[in-house]
């Protein structure tokens, strides 16, 4: 589909008599976002929702386990997963709202 749009712009340019420009356009690819912008709302909600769930389980773990029973490894794993989900969720939230960072 990106190639079709490039061809469209090339045809438009040819219509204005800029043939060399049109040929150059055909060899160029339009850059798009790594994630389709129509997915931003879904991704934001899903990532933030699951991130909050993981944060919840992290804090549950912190609160219920007694001092000696805590394992640093599982704490860090929970923290890492929550941080990743929350971080990306916030990014897609910003992109969804229109703050293209």
């Amino acid at each position, binding site marked *: 589909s990106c190639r079709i*749009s*490039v061809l469209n*712009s090339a045809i438009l340019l040819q219509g204005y008599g800029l043939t060399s420009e049109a040929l150059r*356009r055909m*060899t*160029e*690819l*339009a*850059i*798009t*976002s*790594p994630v389709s*912008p129509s997915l931003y709302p879904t991704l934001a909600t899903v990532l933030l929702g699951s991130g909050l769930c993981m944060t919840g389980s*992290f*804090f549950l773990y*912190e609160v219920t*386990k*007694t*001092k*000696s*029973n*805590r394992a*640093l490894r599982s*704490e*860090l794993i*929970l*923290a*890492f997963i*929550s*941080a*990743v989900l*929350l*971080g*990306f969720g*916030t*990014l897609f939230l*910003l*992109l969804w709202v*229109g*703050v*293209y*960072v």
Partner: protein
Amino acid sequence: MVRLTDLLLASLLALASSVLADNIKLQQVDRKISLNSQFVRITETVKVKNVGDQVVSEVILCESLGGDAVLSSYKVVETSPKNVLAVSRATVAGAPAEAACHSVNLANPLPAGETVGLTVTAVLAKAQIPYPAELGQHETQLMLYNGNVYVLSPYSVSSQTTEVILPTSTVKSYTDEKPVSKSDNKIKYGKYDLIKPFTEKRLSVHFENNKPFKHILTYVKEIEVSHWGNIYVEEKYEIKNAGAKHTGSFSRLKYAHMNLKANSFRDLKAVLPRSAHSLYYVDLIGNISTSNVRKAPTSTIMDLELRYPLLGGWKVDFTIGYSVPLKGFLTSAKSGQRRLTMDLSSPLEDVYIEDMVVRVVLPEGATNIKANLPYDMEKSFDIKYTYLDTTGRPVLVLHKQNVAAPEHAAKFSVDYDFNTVHILREPLLLVSVFFGLFVAVIAYNRMEFTITRDDKWEAARSKEVLATYMEQIQALLEDEATILSGLARATIQLREASEVDAVQREKTTVEKRLKDLEEKVKPLLAAVESRSVRVGSQVRDVLEKTRLLQSRYFKQLSDRIDLLKKGIALGEISRKLAPAQDALTAAKRELEGTITTVFGAY
């Protein structure tokens, strides 16, 4: 006595100056001076003849600039094959002070005796002088233009005509150099024959010009590129009415009722890209609502009205902003370089920009930034810190002065290298911030903050240690329950005698695992008993009950195997074992209840 060297030098100099003027003659020059706007637009059709005996590759053409006039745009095109020719400023000996000369490189060198046709388009700004310099509110504006009747040229001109086009037919005075004729809004000077090089004769026209003199004093355009899918453009303007200055009072009522607005203006029209969205028109006070946006086939047209009408000498500032998607503006070439193509000059129509700055903000991690510009501009670099930035975004700053709107409207492109990995800088920054918060929580939980370690603290500590052991025992009991439920499932699913061996093997593994768990529980139980005898006895109680339950499970299994071996039908078996099964379930539930009460507190 004149020395030989001096004579030689003098003759050489004479030769040099005459070589310039003698080998080229302008056969025919037709000049049109259009005063129909705030600019002076001069179009000349020149026929150059090579009357020397050597090939000529360079022609010098001049324009006369009087007073504050600025040459904003100067283009020379060869008439027949329509080649745009390269032009550079040149200084010519013997030219008058106000002449601006350019040296034009011909596409093909002109042989001796041949002619070539050139079309010159020059745009002068600030060449029309308001005369009178100050006006009342509704007085009509009169402008004075000072030029040259004859084409200013280092070569002799065989024949020339000049036509001056005015906005209206009202002319107060004009230079009377015969032959001259005025018809309606055109004054024709010509034709003049055999004019010597650099002949000066003042051409002065005093005429009525109510066209708006839109001068933009400073124009800053900031283009911010985000690879996530958007390009922001924000333009800041400071606009002044450069016509005759307004004196006296301003009556809003009179302004609203009178039809003649003289030299005042309020409207601006901006032609934006077709895919522009999220437009805004604001100033320091806030949003300006007097605007209208409509979509045309190839553009978006924004009709702006300033906050107040600008009379002569008044100025106002405002900001326009919009966003465009990446499609059509950002492409990547085969070499991996990214290319951003955008409009360089202002989208406003018919304006004169005194100082233009274009800032292109590229994403973090963009390197090797190069610009392809349609005309000369000063380049420099800057850094901008905005959302989620760590090292700052590189900014390419382009600066130019004296830009005339229609002539300088062109596209430019910026090439840069951008590894797609850098797009992850922003989310990774967010992730690390959140992770930092969690790590802080983990660290806090491992820190001891009591100042004195007294009896109350001791009691809490010992309770905590007990709870640790209880938790571990509970985990082991849960494991045991899972294993036993596995065995129960296997028991119920046992239908044929052939499967008995498999189930027996499973039973042995289950027994082994239960034994392992027993071993694990022993030291924990000892630890609990050492802490608290009461709790220890409770736990011992629970363990007894679990052992009883285990034996029940095993008995159930062996009963079923026996019945199967005897060859009794499945229905019969289930009926026979039913009471034992019910008792088993009841015992299991009771055990779970006990575990909850004993271990619940921990």
